[in-house]
Every structure is written in structure tokens, then in C-alpha cells.
């Protein structure tokens, strides 16, 4: 027993010594020594060939610690830092060097690229983000109409940290349609597809001084990794509708004199692609949607049952037009933003190989047929609008 005990004590001491010397504290970082990044933006710098990186972090003020005082977000101000360098690594090194705390990437909410940089190409700037374990692939990316740093330095009335604001905003938008929020992984998947054109949302900073706002300004269309064009907010509607899976979105239809606001509860789109005899392809989109009425202007001469039918037709027309409009813009830009090429490659791999080369001409020659089926099961709390009331008498 005695020898056994001695041996155990020796082992224990050895292990303790090992622990002390081989400590994993190399990895240990205390929270307050970290600067929690909430947004990062890349822009072209004044020197050609260089980029400038702007980082936004949360400033945790030294409030009164203790009970009763919970620091809300109102006391969080944002810290904005800027650096210029050849590459993202160089810039980050500079940022690290000049601040007393280490940068914490894990909670980064958004990545922004200035529009000029986007036109030059962003593939090489994504490399660090994909390689580093600390940066995350599901963070949304966006293009800023202007310089990226504007978005991060913007003083919003809603939230002091515009990075957080953008993150939440995209999160909310993605509830409407997943296409509104493009995460890095989505972008990369599109890039790898080859001929598909990736699409990234654009935001714009408006207003001045303390009352600035950030608005959505459509989508940027890319060819490979360079931006070649944009869709306006209206054209974006067609884009997201064509992918289906749209919930809780409002559209406005009109037939000249009357207008109706419709609330799309669900919209699904089934896509089918078939080969044509002459080497082109035919794409058919079948859209089924459940819609409810949210607002009616006019429609004095109609009775409720026929009104619903009429509205359904209007809605169908509208959806079809949106998608067709968007499609023609895409054709003008020669960018397959809808991902039709991916569908072909999956369904007809053999033909795809030879079609790849001449995709531009195939794309401009696509036979697009859209069938829309809209159903309006309910009209809200009232059946007739006030204007229709008069007619009923």
C-alpha cells in the first residue's frame, strides 16, 4: 500500500508540473481584452492595388457594474477603425497593432464591399475569410452603393451599431425569402457553379449626420466575382419570386384605375428545364401562391365573388410580369442569376458539357414559360370595401 501510494503521489506531481508547463493558456483569451467586431468593410484605397479595411466594433463602456444597472444597447457606442494595405491580412495586422485589444471575429454580423471594389472582383478577398476558422461562412455579405466605410460609420437612430442593425435586417428579410440574404456560403456555391451569376444585395446610406439611414437598394449582379450590373428593388421582386419559398410579402396590382394591395402568404415555384430540339433549353416555372387581400382602392363596380376572381387574375399577371421583367434585365446583362444552368447541369450532365461553352447564346435564347396560379381564400376582416358599399345599395 505504501509503495502504491508513493507512486500515485509521484504521478500526480508529475502531471501537475506538466499542466503548468504545457498550459493551453496560449488559447485563453478573456472577454474584456477582446474587441467584438460587428462589421467589416472592404474598399478600394487611394493607392491602386491596395484596399482599405474598415472595422466596426462594440465599445463596452465601463458602466457601473453590479445589480440594478443593466447596460442596454443604448450605452454601446461603436468604435470604427480603418487601415490600408495590400491585402486583408495586411490590413488586419495593422488594425491589431494599433489597438490595445485583440479583434474577435466570431460575432461579426456583416461583411460589406464597396461598389468599386465589387466591380474589380472580390474573390481574392474572400480567401482569408474562408480559411480562417474564426470567421464564419453564414455571415451575410452585401455591397454598399458608395464606399463600404460609409455604412459602418453611419449613425443610425435605431441602433448605434450599424453592423448589428444590418445583421438583424438581413435576418428579418430572409424570413420573407431566403434570397434576400446572401451568406458567404451561398455566394461561394454560386461561384463554384461556374456559369451561374451570383447576386448580392446592395445597401445605400442616406441622410446626414445623426439621422442617417441605411436602405436596401436592389441587388448587384456579378459575373464570376466582378460586379457587372444591378437590379432595382422592383426587379429584385421578380428575382425572388422566381425562386419560390416566399412568405409574407406584399405586392401591389392595378388595372389602370383600381389598385389592390395583396399579401402573399406563401408562394412556391417549381422549376422544370427541358431540352429543345435545336440545342436550346426551355424553362417552365410553375408558381402556386396563396394570397390574401390587404388593401383595395376602387373596384366600385364589382361584387365580392367576382372581385376575388378578378384579383386573382391581376395577381397572376403581375407576378408573371415581374419575373419576365427581371428575366429580360438578366438577359441584357447576360447573367444567369436564376441558376438555370445549374439545373441543366444536374439534369442533363452530358449535354451540359457541350452547352457550357455556348451558354451565353443559350441563355439569351431561353424559352421561358411561366404559369401562375393564385388563390385568394380570404379577404381580411371585411368582405366589401367602403367604396363598394355604395354600389351595393
Amino acid at each position, binding site marked *: 500500500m505504501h509503495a502504491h501510494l508513493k507512486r*500515485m503521489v509521484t504521478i500526480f506531481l508529475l502531471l501537475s508540473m506538466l*499542466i503548468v508547463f504545457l*498550459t*493551453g*493558456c496560449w*488559447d*485563453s*483569451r*478573456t*472577454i*474584456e481584452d*477582446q474587441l*467584438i467586431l*460587428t462589421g467589416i468593410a472592404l474598399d478600394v484605397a487611394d493607392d491602386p492595388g491596395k484596399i482599405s479595411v474598415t472595422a466596426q466594433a*462594440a465599445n*463596452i*463602456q*465601463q*458602466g457601473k*457594474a*453590479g*445589480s440594478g444597472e*443593466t*447596460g442596454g*444597447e443604448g450605452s*454601446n457606442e461603436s468604435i470604427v477603425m480603418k487601415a490600408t494595405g495590400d491585402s486583408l491580412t495586411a490590413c488586419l495586422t495593422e488594425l491589431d497593432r494599433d489597438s490595445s485589444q485583440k479583434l*474577435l471575429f*466570431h*460575432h461579426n*454580423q456583416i461583411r460589406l464591399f464597396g461598389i468599386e471594389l465589387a466591380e474589380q472582383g472580390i474573390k481574392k478577398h474572400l480567401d482569408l475569410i474562408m480559411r480562417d476558422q*474564426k470567421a*464564419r461562412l453564414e455571415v451575410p455579405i452585401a455591397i454598399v452603393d458608395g464606399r463600404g466605410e460609409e455604412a459602418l460609420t453611419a449613425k443610425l437612430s435605431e441602433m448605434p451599431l450599424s453592423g*448589428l442593425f444590418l445583421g438583424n435586417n438581413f435576418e428579418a428579410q430572409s424570413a420573407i425569402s431566403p434570397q434576400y440574404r446572401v451568406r458567404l456560403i451561398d455566394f461561394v456555391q454560386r461561384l463554384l457553379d461556374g456559369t451561374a451569376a451570383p447576386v448580392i444585395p446592395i445597401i445605400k446610406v442616406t441622410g446626414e449626420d445623426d439621422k442617417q439611414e441605411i436602405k436596401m437598394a436592389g441587388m448587384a449582379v456579378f459575373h464570376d466575382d466582378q460586379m457587372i450590373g444591378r437590379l432595382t428593388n422592383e426587379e429584385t421582386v421578380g428575382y425572388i419570386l422566381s425562386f419560390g419559398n416566399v412568405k409574407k410579402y406584399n405586392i401591389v396590382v392595378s388595372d389602370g384605375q383600381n389598385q389592390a394591395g395583396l399579401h402573399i402568404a406563401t408562394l412556391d415555384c417549381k422549376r422544370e428545364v427541358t431540352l429543345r430540339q435545336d440545342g436550346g433549353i426551355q424553362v417552365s416555372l410553375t408558381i402556386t401562391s396563396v394570397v390574401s387581400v390587404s388593401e383595395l382602392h376602387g373596384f366600385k363596380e364589382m361584387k365580392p365573388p367576382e372581385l376575388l376572381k378578378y384579383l386573382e387574375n391581376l395577381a397572376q399577371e403581375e407576378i408573371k410580369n415581374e419575373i419576365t421583367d427581371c428575366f429580360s434585365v438578366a438577359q441584357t446583362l447576360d447573367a444567369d442569376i436564376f441558376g438555370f444552368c445549374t439545373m441543366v447541369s444536374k439534369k442533363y450532365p452530358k449535354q451540359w458539357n457541350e452547352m457550357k461553352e455556348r451558354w451565353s447564346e443559350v441563355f439569351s435564347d431561353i424559352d421561358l414559360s411561366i404559369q401562375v396560379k393564385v388563390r385568394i381564400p380570404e379577404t381580411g376582416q371585411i368582405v366589401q370595401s367602403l367604396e363598394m358599399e355604395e354600389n351595393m345599395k
Partner: protein
Amino acid sequence: MKSNRLPLETDLLDVLEQEVLCASCAKNAASIPELATGCLSGDTVLLVDGCAGGLVINSKGWEKRAVSEPQSESVVRGPREGFTENLRTNTSLIRRKIRNGQLKVEQMTVGRKTQTGVCLMYLDGVANPKVVETIKYRVGKLDVESVLETGYIEEYIEDAPFSPFGTIGYSEKPDVVAAKILEGRVAVVVDGTPFVLTAPMLFAESFQTAEDYYARSLYSSLIRILRFIAFMITVFAPAVYIALVSFQHELIPTTLLFSFAKAREGTPFPAFIEAVIMVFAFEILREAGVRLPRPVGQAISIVGALIMGDAAVSAGIVGAPMVIVIAITAVAGFLVPALNDAGSMLRIVMMVMAAFIGFYGVAFGFLGMLVHLATLESFGVPYLGDFDGDDTKDTWIRMPLWSMTKRPKSIARGDTTRGQRFIPPLRPHVPDEEGEEP
């Protein structure tokens, strides 16, 4: 004169013992040490001039505590009797629960100076004979000076003295001990203490209380699962907190991270030191709460918990999240009282592992604990034995009593059937109004 005269060679002592004295338990002792022991045990010694030997007559009648509610185990529903310090009382309490000829009581004396009486009780035919032999052998071989409490014996006969987990159970309630004997365990009752040992003890027993079996099975199952979770919390919570705050910041939601950072802004110590301070403080408070006289004890617990914790946070020594974590740890620890000491020790080990290498350390600490549990044995029975096969009916959950038709295979040998398979009818059986059976 009596018609049956004793033969003339009969010893006077024998006559006295058999015919004259009307005391139970009179013994004819032949040596002085025996007489001395008897005297010291409260018996009366009768020496007759001219006789070789003396009579030791049972006349024990010292002051003893009445049977009262046990202090360490209180129940809402169930018997409130507890053992006392008297060996005979204790054995009689158990005998009253198991009125069966198979219940064997074997008496021994241990302790050179204290000569303490020890009783081994077990059900013959159900208990594993090997286990009984082992315990008898180990207790018999004890060469100690004094045995004042079952804890002494426990330390000498247990299988793994350096493990944080105990391999011998104890209880202060006769119904608990009786239930364990019925399952095939051996009880060791020691004179002078109300705590009775039961061996072998398995891991699952630490999570079982008497009340589990008197309350409804569904509720008991939920509480049983809650106890497991509580044990995990009490061992791992501080470690997980340290790992989160020092290493894996990405797991914390962003807004919570802001408030953590703000809370830690003013504190000078790294998370590990903070945690150690708090655990230390908690252990001090707990110990103090037990030792203090009753009226003062309440005040101290309130003072300690609320005001000291709050003051520490205000003074900036520890952060508010740390206090919450320790509070939860502390409270969770009391759900499984049998593993309280084990929990305290393991908690510190896990904290060290977490401070060392974060979640990976906690994971391997957990694995180490599992490995250790798998290697423990209690008197030949694997410590995790209840988790094999059939016996799981009483481990994670408490299946209804009517479904537990066999005794635990790990403990019992021999007669292992408790009862027939019985399923309560879905529609209760009610005789007709005329008294006939439907």
C-alpha cells in the same frame, strides 16, 4: 420439593442460571476478560464463592435517545422513523420491517479498546453468498483500536479508498435499509451510531431516495432524470462557464456577450481565479451553515448568500454572471446529497481542465470520469452494474413497482423473483351491485 431433582454434580452456577434467575440472556463465563467485558457492557456479573466462573446477566439499561425523525434524510411521504445509537433498537427496527426467517443477523465485536458491537444483516438465499463472505471476512479482519461510527468501518472495508465516489452506501432510515436488504444487499449496523451501511452500493443508488418509491411513478421518473441533470450541472457548470468565457467566445449569443464583457470589465481576475474564489466561498458558507447553532444559522445563510454575493459584485471582485453560475451549482448539488462530496471534488477537477484547455478539457474530464466509473467495483459488483440490461428499470427512471418483477441481477443471487408479472387493468374491477363478479 421438586420432583425432578438435579443430579448432584450440577454446578451451583448452572442451577442459579437455569432455575433461580429469571433474567434473559444469562451466560456462564469462564474467564476474567469475558467477565470484564460483560461488566463494561452494562451486564451484571455474579460471582459465587467456590465456583469456577461467573454469571454474566443481561441488565443493560442505559439512557438512550428515542426513535425520532432522522435529521439527514427527511421525506414528505413515508415513515419518519430513524435509527438510534442502540444496536438492539436498530436491529429490531429492521426486523419489524422484514418478518421473515430468512433474515440473518450475525453479531461481531470490533475495536480493541471500544469493543463495539457490529451486526451484519442479510437475507439468506437472496444475498450473494460471495459478498456476504467478503464482508464478514473484511469486518472480521479489522484490527483497529476503536470503532466509533460506521464511517470508520467503511474506510477499512471499502474497495476504492481514493475514488471520489463511495462504494458503500449508508442510511439513517430503517425502511431504506430494509428495502436494500430485500434486494440482496448486506447491512452493517454498528452500536453507537444511527447510520447503517449497506453494501454493495452502485452508482444508480446515489440518485435514488426512499420517496421515489412511495410517490407516483411518472413523477418519480421525472425527478430522477432531474437529479441526473442536476448532478451534471453541479459538476460541470463552473467549468463550462470558464470554458465559454476564456476560450470559446463564439458560443455565447452576441448580446449576452456584450453584457458579459461589461460585467467583466471591472473585475481584475481571470475567470478561473474568480471561479475558484466563488467555489471556495461557497464551501465555507456551506460548512459554516452546518456547524452554526440553529438560530444563528438561518441568518448566516441569508447574509452569506444574498448580501455577500451582491457586495462582492458591487465591489468588483467577481462578476454577476459568476455569482449566478455558482448559485445554480450550489443549489443543484443539494439534489443529490449522496454525491455532494464527490461533486465538490470533481467540480474542481473540471474547472482546472477547463482553465487549461477549454471545452476540450471539459470533454476529456468527462471522459476521465466515465472511465473511472467504469472501472469501479463494489464488492465484486461493477459500479455501473445497474445500467446493464434489465436492471435499468430503476436507474434513469422509476418504472412502476408492478413492472419490477425481478430483483436487480447485479446484486441478488438465488431467489430473484419478486413477484408475478402484473399489469393493472385499464378498467378497474368493480363487483356488481348484487355482489356478483362481472
